[in-house]
């Protein structure tokens, strides 16, 4: 399947003098460039980019694409990533010239449709979150977290309270503590109980007037709803702190419960997950944030406002934390989110959550006889199984199982996260999978755990490569192609 065009690098396919785009002749004369610019600023040669004919390029990238698993081609139950179907209509709508080929500095009166769309999206997110003030600017969930923590820092500065700490759960995504540090705050980790929920006693020990923000993921990364979230929020609020909701798992509670109603003061959405913006091989995402009214003044500027004569971008926000991203954020991703929300409406969104939870629980019920699921008999949108017993008995690890699933045409679940579960296998089927697909995964897992340890250690067996040496990659980093003769 994998032919030369994919196996070789662009640079190995390159031949001097081949290909290259043919540009129109200059219709404004051909003044030598060194008459227009100081000669010392000019390069003698253009950069040494590869030279390929267009058919070469097409075959190369097309063949490369086929060595990926993707939602369009495979079941992709990658926990915590919500790999749901990416509707084709959203791709087409986001490519409308009036949305795609619009310059970010066009005057407001030349972009009324876009401003209306973005304004309405702000309103939709406010309603879904229960938090009324929205900024669409952050470029990803992690940047949304960072912006929100900066909002908290600015808020407490204005109150004259030098709070320095951010509490995160031990099951939190790694971005939570990393964002805290980037906001100049200190991350403090609270434990989970054996049941997988935030340990309230441990939390109480850490709560003080030093705490600016508690970050909570709900449902958490074990796929469990933090039932005491309201009490937790009250405890934090009693000390004057703010509650941040990591919205990574909103898919489970769309139309069921709203973070603003269970005590969150700030949150981000991951539209590339929850609202099906495609994941793009790693991005782009977007990270719109929603906050309580008393924090609205601190949101990154600009935001879209509606006035009697139409919509405009409001830059006059003196208490804003400033910008975290240029222009207006990842608008193309936001357009897809808007289209997704309008496609579903209130009932549809609730059915998304219901079916995500139904699918996850059904798969949990089918997987549990095969692999222990330490934390519960029930889950929300995902669950975390453990290969700890297999590891102990037969030396078969979570990684071995993950790799073997690839042979069966299933993308592996997330493994070794959250860190609190040994040999974790985190499975999130999403609502856009059929029962047959879920049955097939359960059956495959049942089969895989019966297979010989040797077979599993060496899996996958059917892919173009198997078990690349990651230690070598890190110790002797080769991060770019180098011409063979140049290395001499």
């Amino acid at each position, binding site marked *: 399947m994998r032919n030369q065009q994919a196996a070789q690098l662009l640079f190995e396919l390159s031949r001097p003098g081949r290909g290259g785009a043919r540009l129109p002749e200059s219709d404004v004369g051909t003044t030598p*460039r060194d008459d227009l610019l100081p000669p010392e600023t000019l390069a003698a040669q253009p950069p040494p*980019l590869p*030279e390929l004919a267009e058919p070469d390029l097409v075959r190369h990238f097309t063949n490369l*694409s086929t060595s*990926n698993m993707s939602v369009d081609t495979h079941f992709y139950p990658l926990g915590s990533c919500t790999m749901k179907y990416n509707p084709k209509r959203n791709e087409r709508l986001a490519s409308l010239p009036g949305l795609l080929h619009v310059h970010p500095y066009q005057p407001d009166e030349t972009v009324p449709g876009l401003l209306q769309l973005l304004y309405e999206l702000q309103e939709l997110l406010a309603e879904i979150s229960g938090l009324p003030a929205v900024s669409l600017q952050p470029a990803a969930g992690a940047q949304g977290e960072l912006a929100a923590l900066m909002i908290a820092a600015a808020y407490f500065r204005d109150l004259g309270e030098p709070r320095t700490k951010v509490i995160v759960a031990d099951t939190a995504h790694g971005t939570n503590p990393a964002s805290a540090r980037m906001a100049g705050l200190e991350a403090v980790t609270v434990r989970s109980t054996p049941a997988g929920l935030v340990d309230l006693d441990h939390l109480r020990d850490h709560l003080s007037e030093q705490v600016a923000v508690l970050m909570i993921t709900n449902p958490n990364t074990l796929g469990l709803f933090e039932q005491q979230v309201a009490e937790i929020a009250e405890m934090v609020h009693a000390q004057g702190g703010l509650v941040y909701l990591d919205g990574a798992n909103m898919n489970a509670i769309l139309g069921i419960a709203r973070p603003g109603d269970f005590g969150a003061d700030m949150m981000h959405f991951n539209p590339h997950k929850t609202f099906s913006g495609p994941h793009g*091989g790693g991005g782009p995402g977007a990270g719109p944030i929603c906050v309580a009214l008393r924090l609205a003044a601190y949101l990154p500027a600009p935001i879209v406002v509606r006035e009697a004569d139409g919509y405009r971008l409001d830059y006059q926000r003196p208490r804003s934390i400033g910008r975290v991203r240029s222009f207006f954020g990842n608008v193309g991703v936001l357009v897809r989110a808007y289209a997704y929300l309008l496609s579903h409406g209130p009932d549809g969104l609730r059915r998304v959550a219901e079916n995500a939870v139904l699918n996850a629980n059904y798969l949990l019920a*089918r997987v549990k006889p095969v692999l222990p699921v330490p934390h519960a008999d029930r889950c929300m949108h995902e669950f975390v199984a453990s290969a700890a017993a297999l590891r102990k008995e037969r030396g078969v690890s979570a990684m071995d199982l993950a790799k073997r699933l690839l042979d069966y045409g299933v993308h592996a679940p997330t493994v070794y996260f959250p860190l609190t579960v040994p040999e974790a296998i985190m499975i999130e089927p999403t609502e856009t999978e059929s*029962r047959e697909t879920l049955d097939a995964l359960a059956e495959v897992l049942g089969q895989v755990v019966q297979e010989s340890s040797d077979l599993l250690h060496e899996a996958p067996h059917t892919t173009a490569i198997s078990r690349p040496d990651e230690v070598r990659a890190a110790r002797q980093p080769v*991060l770019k192609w180098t011409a063979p003769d140049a290395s001499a």
Partner: protein
Amino acid sequence: MPYLFNTPQDQREMLEAIGVASVDELFDVVPPQLRLRGPLRLPPAMGECELTRHLAGLAEQNWHAAKATCFLGGGSYDHFIPAVVDALASRGEFYTSYTPYQPEVSQGNLQVMFEYQTLICQLTGMDVSNASLYDGGSAVAEAALMCMSVTRREGRVVIAGSVHPEYREILATYLANLRTELVTVDAVEGRVPLDRLAAAVDDETACVIVQHPNFFGILEEVAEIRRLAHQRGARLVVAVDPISLGILQRPGDLGADVVVAEGQSLGNPMSFGGPYLGILACREEFLRRVPGRIAGQTVDRRGRRAFVLTLQTREQHIRREKATSNICTNQGLLALRASIYLAAVGPRGLRDVADLCLRKAHYAARHVAGTPGLQLAWDAPFFKEFVVRDLEGNVAARLARARRAGILAGVPLARWYPELDDCFLVAVTEQRTKSEIDQWAQGLAAAPAREPAGHA
């Protein structure tokens, strides 16, 4: 719902297998007082046909590059995008996959990342590139943090006032809660003055940040700036326009330590500001401090060449609060588009695009010299953008007049530079034809209808 599978019968059987009576029972874990009492107040669902009509209606209200002639720049440009970029990047295998956590089934994305990194190193003349950041602006901020980490200097970051104002704002936001002082050296006559820049750099300065060509389109004296930065042990960060590297000396060859750029120009639509990609490339010394994803080459268990995500001990999912950055995505799809673009145009194509931009921008600028009431703000070498001063001082009215002729003629500078409230920024890409440029000049020159004549 078009994307759901479960029929009522599926649902019944699935609930039975789970051992519950209803879907509602699955949500018993959500305390009743926390649940929504009614449906969300959202507009009712639209079918595809209705939705398409609605979005087409919204899209139609906006001016776009095929409907109006775009001379707007300032970090986002109307460059030509070859069809091959759209055709390849719209393959579902690319855009519906995710971060390559399982290298065996992600060699396509990983090899693209490795190729992207190589292309960026070729383009900039640097040793190392990551697999992309969010945008040019946050790349500036990440570059500053990286320099602070490598130099172990947290005292000061010095930035030229001729760097994109939004990039500077982002940097200020990122530094607001840290102890580091941000010193901005204002531009004089469209460029950063070397003496004032030198005076701003002290022994606690982590880096000096300049843009070349700068926000006004003007070339900075990068080699001189490198000398003055390095004299005090500070690193030099240069923000570039990737298209300009078709003809300009590469920042790596000019001695930059870190190169950042907005990658939109490389095959990505303007999309009202995003999604874009932030380019970040640097010298070897930064290797283990680079933010974001990086792909590396290795071998698999049978010795075959393979690509993996590497140096992950820098990253948040391993190091949590000790990570070099909180970033956990790259802009994979945009980096793919940039890679296809660079490979499609090749070295001569990129040079030709840059040459056309240069010549057309200079042609447009010559028009300005011949238009009463307008002049070039400064006499300094520029690439594809330049600043026009309206001697009548009424930029808004003049741009509005041009707009009536269907021309987006420039970006007013007053929002960022109050002292330049009589100026606007003009960008000319390879897409603009001679006749469009002539019309642009006429549109700007046209006598104001029913408005008093200006007095310069």
